[in-house]
């Protein structure tokens, strides 16, 4: 039985050869707009933030990403000033604001449920902040109109309506306009797209990104949706257990996850484990998963140590056992299932005691069907550098 090499081997190699972006593209900027220095926050016995440190540069689209209960919302509320840190310092524009109330900070926020004032018209909702900041009356109407236009709502049609008369997507836009009309230095967004349907969400994602670049306002965005974070962010802080697991650009987070948690939370991944048995020309030799393979050099690896690596489904190739490219790592197994996903096919392969998922580009199952069938004996192959050595969580 002849098994073709599935997927195009060179594809991911090219993707991976993009030089990594430095940790912060803006680390050279004079001073961050928002900075956390070892900020901690407890609610009773529950620690919501545990010595969290990060900084956000001016104009950046910064996402706080994590599962529910990871502390991302508390972090946002600490920036907004709804919560006061128990330890550490929160800085905005270089000034410690630990004890400043939200109304004393030059911020704006879009809430998860939009929090539009139900008793006020759209116009009054947007102008509320201007009134509070004592903007001259003559100036307000113009700015409200401009803000509505900025979020693609026709002022003549929507200004006089009540929030209850708008759809979810329109309310979302009003909430955005109400925040942006103040021209804040930082805009905080607390899962603002969660309640929208998929199509609208995609549309708003691009629009938010566009506004961020157009206005130069710093956006700090809380989400539990990894795809959303990857789409929109300049940088992502992945949070888990009240701390930051990793900060980096979307490519860094996806391609170089530091811990098993990050690797699992962002996208799909396969974990291989084994024991380091010695050096290899370009890294270390690992024995595990019923085979032996090479991983790149990593400061935490030493001979005899247990090693865990992550390999993304699209970094793996499925080939016939005889066709493994020379010098590539490979594991032997048999096909369990081929799942049709449209853009890609996922081949599930049983290797020793685990199931590995491999993404194969769909080249048209009606014209050039994949020759792999369940129960075929196959090899998984990947280049030594196409994996991530993980630290412990």
């Amino acid at each position, binding site marked *: 039985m002849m098994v073709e090499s599935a997927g195009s081997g060179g594809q991911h190699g090219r993707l991976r050869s993009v030089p990594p972006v430095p940790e912060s593209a803006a680390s050279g900027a004079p001073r961050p707009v928002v900075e956390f220095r070892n900020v901690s926050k407890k609610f009773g016995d529950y620690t919501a933030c545990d010595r969290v440190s990060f900084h956000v540069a001016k104009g950046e689209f910064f996402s706080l990403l994590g599962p529910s209960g990871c502390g991302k919302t508390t972090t946002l509320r600490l920036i907004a000033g709804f919560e006061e840190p128990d330890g550490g310092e929160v800085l905005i524009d270089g000034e410690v604001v630990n004890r400043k109330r939200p109304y004393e900070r030059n911020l704006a926020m879009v809430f998860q449920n939009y929090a539009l*004032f139900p008793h006020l018209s759209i116009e009054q909702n947007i102008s509320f902040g201007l009134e*509070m900041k004592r903007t001259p009356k003559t100036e307000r109407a113009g700015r409200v109109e401009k803000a509505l236009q900025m979020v693609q709502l026709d002022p003549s049609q929507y200004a006089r309506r009540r929030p209850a008369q708008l759809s979810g997507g329109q309310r979302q836009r009003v909430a955005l306009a109400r925040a942006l009309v103040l021209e804040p230095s930082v805009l905080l967004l607390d899962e603002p797209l969660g309640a929208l349907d998929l199509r609208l969400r995609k549309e708003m994602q691009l629009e938010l990104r566009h506004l961020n670049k157009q206005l130069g306002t710093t956006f700090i965005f809380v989400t539990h949706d990894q795809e959303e974070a990857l789409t929109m962010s300049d940088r992502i802080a992945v949070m888990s257990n009240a701390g930051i697991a990793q900060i980096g650009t979307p490519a860094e987070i996806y391609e170089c996850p530091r811990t098993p948690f990050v690797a699992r939370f962002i996208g799909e991944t396969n974990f291989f484990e084994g024991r380091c048995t010695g050096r290899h020309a370009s890294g270390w030799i690992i024995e595990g998963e019923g085979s032996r393979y090479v991983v790149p050099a990593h400061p935490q690896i030493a001979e005899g140590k247990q090693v865990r690596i992550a390999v993304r489904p699209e970094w793996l190739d499925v080939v016939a056992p005889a066709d493994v490219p020379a010098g590539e790592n490979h594991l032997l197994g048999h096909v369990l299932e081929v799942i049709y996903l449209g853009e890609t096919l996922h081949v599930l392969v049983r290797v020793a005691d685990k199931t590995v998922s491999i993404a194969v580009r769909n080249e048209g199952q009606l014209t050039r069907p994949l020759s792999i069938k369940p129960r075929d004996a196959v090899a998984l192959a990947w280049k030594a550098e196409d994996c991530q050595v993980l630290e412990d969580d």
Partner: protein
Amino acid sequence: MSLRRRVLLWFHDHPWLEAWALLAPGLTWLVIFFVAPLLLMFGYSFMPRDAYGGVESGFTLEHYARFFDPLYITIVGRSVVYAVVCTVLCLLLGYPVAYAIARAQRWRNALLFLVTLPFWTSFLVRIFSMIFLLRESGLINSILVGSGLIEEAISMLYTSPAVLVGLIYGFLPFMVLPVYASLEKLDRSLLEAAEVLGARPAARFFRITLPLSKPGVVAGSMLVFIPALGSFLTSDLLGGAKEILIGNLVQNQFTTARNWPFGSAASFVMMTLVLVAVSLYLRVRDAGEQMSR
């Protein structure tokens, strides 16, 4: 097809009749025991009185005309003033209480229980207990005299403040509960949104909390004003003869004076006052809504 199923299907095909079937028992009760006596009283109020407390056949406006007597104008005027003052003071006293209860987390149910606690005893008993408090040999005077703050007991009982104190005491829970209900529903994120938009505590209260608790304030005001206008027990026991209110007037006419036609007319004057006051109140409220920008 079973009878049960047939009835259900029939109601399914006639939803309008289903609504009536549900309304019928309560509606019948109200027609017999509320609408009928009311119409009877309305008729009485236009009939001449006979010598023995009943009515003679005929038509007269004399019972209504009596209200233009300065004596009765004073009573009506006093009743309205007391009801208004009582409502305003109940609002000023009750709103903060309702606000505190709505904000309380752990003690909320206990506090609500305390608000409703007075209802466990009869209103009459509670008003009598006020007499023990207010009279010249009562608790307040004993303490004040005993501590040397005043030399002679103050007469508090049978004065207008005594009546007002009694009214407010009696009706305060009716203000607290509806205001609490509307404050409790208030979405906290609205206040946070206002705070981020630059609103200080006072602005948050007057621009967000107060307008959004208005349904509770309106309901509470009605629940206090309407019974306060018709109350007779409080003024009778705490106000004495010189603090007579329209409620006492009605009561007297039906009991001691045995003038049912005049008592009926007084009832309708009171009802008219309530309707006028409530509609005025609602109009002012709606106008305020349009003006608040």
